């Protein structure tokens, strides 16, 4: 039974999604319990797999018993076991918070939403676990197509944003597919480990270099790496809160993991870090991404848009850290991936909680929120401090690793960009806190008409529903716990997953 765990991670949500889709037509009340069961099974299996990997070392699961170069295998090492657990945990927490919102939707959307949600998680987890480059493409498209539909479920400009996302996302996935085609033409294999064994003789080949660049560009499209980020801000601003809470923490982070997997497993560090100029150019692109994301976030008037631009900036952190070319940078990038998934979940859940009580998420309508929504704002403060990078929240520790890696590699521009972005995040979040704490609260627009006594009753606590606030507070506490245990996480998990050759 326990040797079948890696299959359960994918099979449970996949079957769950099909059942939910059927239940959506016949017994609508079953949709949410089915979604919960499939997510709990997926989370349990991923934690079980993580435990197995930490005890017995990397494991290979042959789907249907076919041997590796011919059949599809799941290669699980410490790195992707960790990412699997993070993806499942984030998706489960966000699912709990989604119910309140989804039940208020028209009945025909309920089954569709849960089915798409679980299918998106299947795609994301599949991308992390699979050991086959073409299988990865198919799962990437599963995650993307469901993601487009989840974004399009919002109101107002959501369909237009989703259509823009479809166009850009498809171009990105196609670039990846083209790169895989080049690799297949050169090596005759699609299995990641098999390709890595056949490649060393071909390292000088232009076609292999083209494949490397195409695959990276395709992944960067999907990860919203700065010049290719145009789809992200609108998609995440107009997506309904439950969809944004799933996609914003996971989609970009999983793509960053895929990039690291490609660099470490398929092309190996010996090849990925052998181009002096290219590596430096990518780090400088990351610098531009960090700075541009920060500046655009400063200009944002809407809370969700501000968060979306912070994601653009964070993607720059991780891509830059991975391309610095040293072990410390890769460690920092992986740790930041885990932390950023948790931080983004925290702030997007806060945005979801606010959307229950505010008509819009414009920053100017945040007045008096510390009085009316103390738990939500408290969690947002922890999330904000973590994004800024204040100890003991987790954001500090990963930023510390990234800065140390920058010093080791002598990438001063990268360090300056990290510090600049931390400073901008400080300004951004304290601007929010200032509006919410100090600015005089006016009952206008909040549905209170108590005349002269409006101030008194308007300041009464009006929290979002407990089903949203509890997951939010749990996530906020999780940020501090992740920070306190980050040393154990690095030494006990991430370090085991990185190849020994990477210094």
């Amino acid at each position, binding site marked *: 039974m326990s040797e079948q765990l890696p299959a359960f991670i994918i099979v449970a949500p996949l079957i769950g999604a099909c059942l939910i889709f059927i239940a959506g037509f016949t017994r609508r009340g079953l949709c949410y319990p089915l979604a919960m069961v499939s997510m709990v099974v997926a989370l349990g299996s991923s934690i079980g797999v993580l435990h197995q990997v930490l005890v017995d070392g990397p494991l290979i699961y042959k789907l249907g018993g076919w041997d590796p170069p011919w059949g599809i295998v799941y290669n699980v090492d410490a790195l992707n076991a960790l990412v699997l657990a993070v993806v499942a945990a984030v998706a489960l927490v966000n699912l709990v918070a989604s119910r309140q919102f989804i039940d208020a939707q028209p009945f025909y959307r309920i089954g569709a939403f849960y089915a798409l949600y679980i299918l998106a998680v299947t795609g994301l987890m599949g991308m992390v676990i699979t050991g086959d480059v073409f299988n990865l493409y198919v799962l990437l498209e599963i995650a993307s197509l469901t993601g487009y539909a989840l974004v*399009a479920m919002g109101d107002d400009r959501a369909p237009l944003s989703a259509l823009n996302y479809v166009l850009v996302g498809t171009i990105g996935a*196609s670039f990846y597919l083209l790169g895989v*085609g080049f690799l*297949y033409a050169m090596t005759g294999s699609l299995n990641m480990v098999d390709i890595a064994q056949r490649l060393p003789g071909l390292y000088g080949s232009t076609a292999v270099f083209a494949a490397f660049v195409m695959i990276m560009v395709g992944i960067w499209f999907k990860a919203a790496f700065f010049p290719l980020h145009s789809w992200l801000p609108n998609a995440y601003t107009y997506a309904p809160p439950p969809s944004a809470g799933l996609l914003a923490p996971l989609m970009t982070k999983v793509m960053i993991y895929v990039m690291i997997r490609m660099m470490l497993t398929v092309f190996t560090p010996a090849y990925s870090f052998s181009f002096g100029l290219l590596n430096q150019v990518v780090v400088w692109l990351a610098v531009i991404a960090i700075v541009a994301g920060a500046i655009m976030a400063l200009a944002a008037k809407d809370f969700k848009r501000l968060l979306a631009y912070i994601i653009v900036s964070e993607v720059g952190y991780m891509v830059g850290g991975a391309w610095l070319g040293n072990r410390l940078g890769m460690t920092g990038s992986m740790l930041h991936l885990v932390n950023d998934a948790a931080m983004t979940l925290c702030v997007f859940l806060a945005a979801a909680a606010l959307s229950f009580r505010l008509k819009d998420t414009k920053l100017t309508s945040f007045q008096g929120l510390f009085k009316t929504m103390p738990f939500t704002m408290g969690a947002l403060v922890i999330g904000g401090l973590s994004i800024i990078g204040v100890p003991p929240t987790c954001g500090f520790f990963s930023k510390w690793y990234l800065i140390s890696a920058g010093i080791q590699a002598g990438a001063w521009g990268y360090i300056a960009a990290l510090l600049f972005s931390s400073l901008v995040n400080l300004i951004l979040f304290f601007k929010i806190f200032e509006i919410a704490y100090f600015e005089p609260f006016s009952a206008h627009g909040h549905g209170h008409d108590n005349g002269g006594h409006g101030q008194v009753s308007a300041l009464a606590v009006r929290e979002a529903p407990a089903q949203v606030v509890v997951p939010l507070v749990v996530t906020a506490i999780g940020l501090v716990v992740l920070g306190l245990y980050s040393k154990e996480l690095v030494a006990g998990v991430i370090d085991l997953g990185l190849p020994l050759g990477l210094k």
Partner: protein
Amino acid sequence: MDDLLSKIAGGYNYIAYITIMMIGLYAVIAKRNLVKKIIGMSIFQTAIILFYISIGAKKGATIPILMHDHGPEAAEHAIKAADYINPLPHVLMLTAIVVAVATLGVALSLAVKVYQRYGTLEEPEIQDQINKS
């Protein structure tokens, strides 16, 4: 000159797929009509399918179905790989075609929703309406 011509003749499939791909990319970037953009996206995907199919093809080879008996004696015939085209890229592209169809379906249904919302599919006109509201 002869060198260039022989290069073109040897790799015309690659030139064809790059050309088609760039036509698609141009449409996605430069066209102002959303349906034209979607058509461009579809052309882009099709170009990659063409690339995969062309790398599986071989001159003078046949489809990969073994032309001997299906009994126990079938295994005795030696199978020459050079006589058969590589079926794997074709199989991969069956999957990619399914993905492309699904993407096209999602994109077109989103275009319908955009049309219901704004009453037009021309990007500048949609932008005008967004700026006004």
